[in-house]
């Protein structure tokens, strides 16, 4: 009998306590962040989408080699004499045309290993984290500022230059040889 009434008492007192708790929470300000309208404050060291500042990139390929999943692809072409590519902000002379700088961000797993080896600090993490796409190919980011024609032109320039150089060398070689030959005959 005592237990019976104790049970009733317990039921009501615990329900009452519980209801008081929920009633208090009714007036606690909500912790919800209205996400697309209000962005949450991210920690300052968060790792999100990569960005490459191509003005500073010297095409040294260090980042591509550091990447554990090989999602950075870099191709470079040597500049020909007379072309001035300018300098990076920390005073390094740029000598290479970067004709391809693709980051496959779908493969990237945000380890930040590519960021540290860069000699000019031009590849870094941004705070952009909303970059979903409907096509997977759109996730391959091309950072090169040159147009398609310019890239071909740079490559051709370089090939032409190399060909000219080779031709020059050959000519020199021939000239030398013919000189030698003529000397031998004498």
């Amino acid at each position, binding site marked *: 009998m005592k237990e019976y009434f104790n*049970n*009733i008492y317990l039921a009501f007192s615990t*329900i009452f306590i*519980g*209801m008081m*708790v*929920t*009633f208090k*929470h*009714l*007036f*606690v*300000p*909500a*912790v*919800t962040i*209205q996400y697309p309208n209000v962005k949450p404050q991210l920690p300052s060291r968060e790792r999100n989408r990569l960005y490459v500042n191509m003005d500073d990139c010297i095409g040294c390929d260090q980042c591509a080699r550091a990447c554990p999943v090989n999602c950075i692809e870099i191709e470079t072409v040597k500049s020909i004499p007379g072309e001035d590519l300018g300098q990076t902000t920390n005073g390094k002379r740029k000598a290479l045309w970067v004709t391809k700088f693709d980051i496959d961000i779908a493969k990237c797993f945000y380890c930040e290993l590519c960021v540290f080896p860069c000699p000019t600090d031009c590849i870094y993490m941004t705070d952009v984290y909303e970059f979903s796409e409907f096509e997977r190919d759109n996730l391959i980011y091309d950072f090169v500022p040159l147009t398609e024609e310019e890239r071909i032109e740079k490559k051709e320039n370089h090939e032409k230059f190399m060909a000219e150089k080779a031709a020059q060398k050959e000519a020199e070689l021939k000239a030398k040889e013919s000189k030698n030959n003529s000397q031998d005959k004498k």
Partner: protein
Amino acid sequence: MIFDFFTKLTGSEISASIISALLPLFLFVLPFALIAVLLERKVSAHIQDRLGPMRVGYHGILQTLADILKLIQKEDIIADSNDKPLFNIAPVLVFAGSYAVFAAIPFTSSYIGSNINLGLFYIIGISGIVVIGILMAGWASNNKYTLLGAMRSAAQLISYEIPTLMIVVTILMITGTLNLNELTEMQSGFFWNWMIFGGQATGIAKILLIPFMIVGFVVIYISTLAEVNRTPFDISEAESELVSGYHTEYSGMKFAIFFLAEYANMFAVSAIVVVLFFGGYLSPIGYLGNTLGLPWLIPVEQLLWFTFKGVAFVLVQMWLRWTLPRLRVDQLMAICWKYLIPIAFVNLLIVGLITLI
């Protein structure tokens, strides 16, 4: 009452009965369900320190409308092994059962669907149809979870009917009438004439009645809460164990009808509690219409009071739902058979003795 009015207005009994049957649905039940669904989501959200729907309209006030639009567009799926006729009738029956209750509920002194003498008896009888509908839905879905849910629901409804009836009989012994309009009028005057404060009884009997009336109110509130299958008594639709029970297989509008019936039921049971214990549509403090000398204002005020009291109890139901965990089946039965029924019975006895004084 309202029927006579419309008969005079339209000159035909058929159109009058159709109008008076549809009136509470479109003027009261549908708007109430719309608001209550939103209210439920808002209350639950704020209790859990969230915000709830915020997108559609200011603070999401149009969310339910958007939901209904979505539900109307949805495909009405009927699985191959469903028992089609029963499957289609079940939601109609459930809604009919819970809507029929509104026929005998006095919204104001001048509006009651049907002023029958057996009002209370009718309400308790007709709400039994809901059980049939639920069982039908569970059986026709041909799915073990829905059947389990339906069986639990039937067991629960039938057991909790008993304490409800005991308390109703307790009230009956004091008032001596089953007519809800008369029952309400008997509590007129100020709020100390409400049943929870002993009704029209005078002297020592009134003081003696108050604690037992409060016990009666608590018992009937718990048992009606169980009858509408709401947490903590929602084992029949337990989302986490039964994939929401008897309406698992329903989609689109049929699901919406179940939902509507649930909210209509919530208000119906609150209304019954209000009529039995809290003076129905009566104002606790007198009417503005009387002081201003505008007799037509009184029914409007009464409707407001009735809605206010009903919604207050609906809010408590929601508050309970987001506070308490679900009971186990054995606990559910224990509460009913070991606690509510004996208490209600003893209460009945004591109140009977007091009324002899």
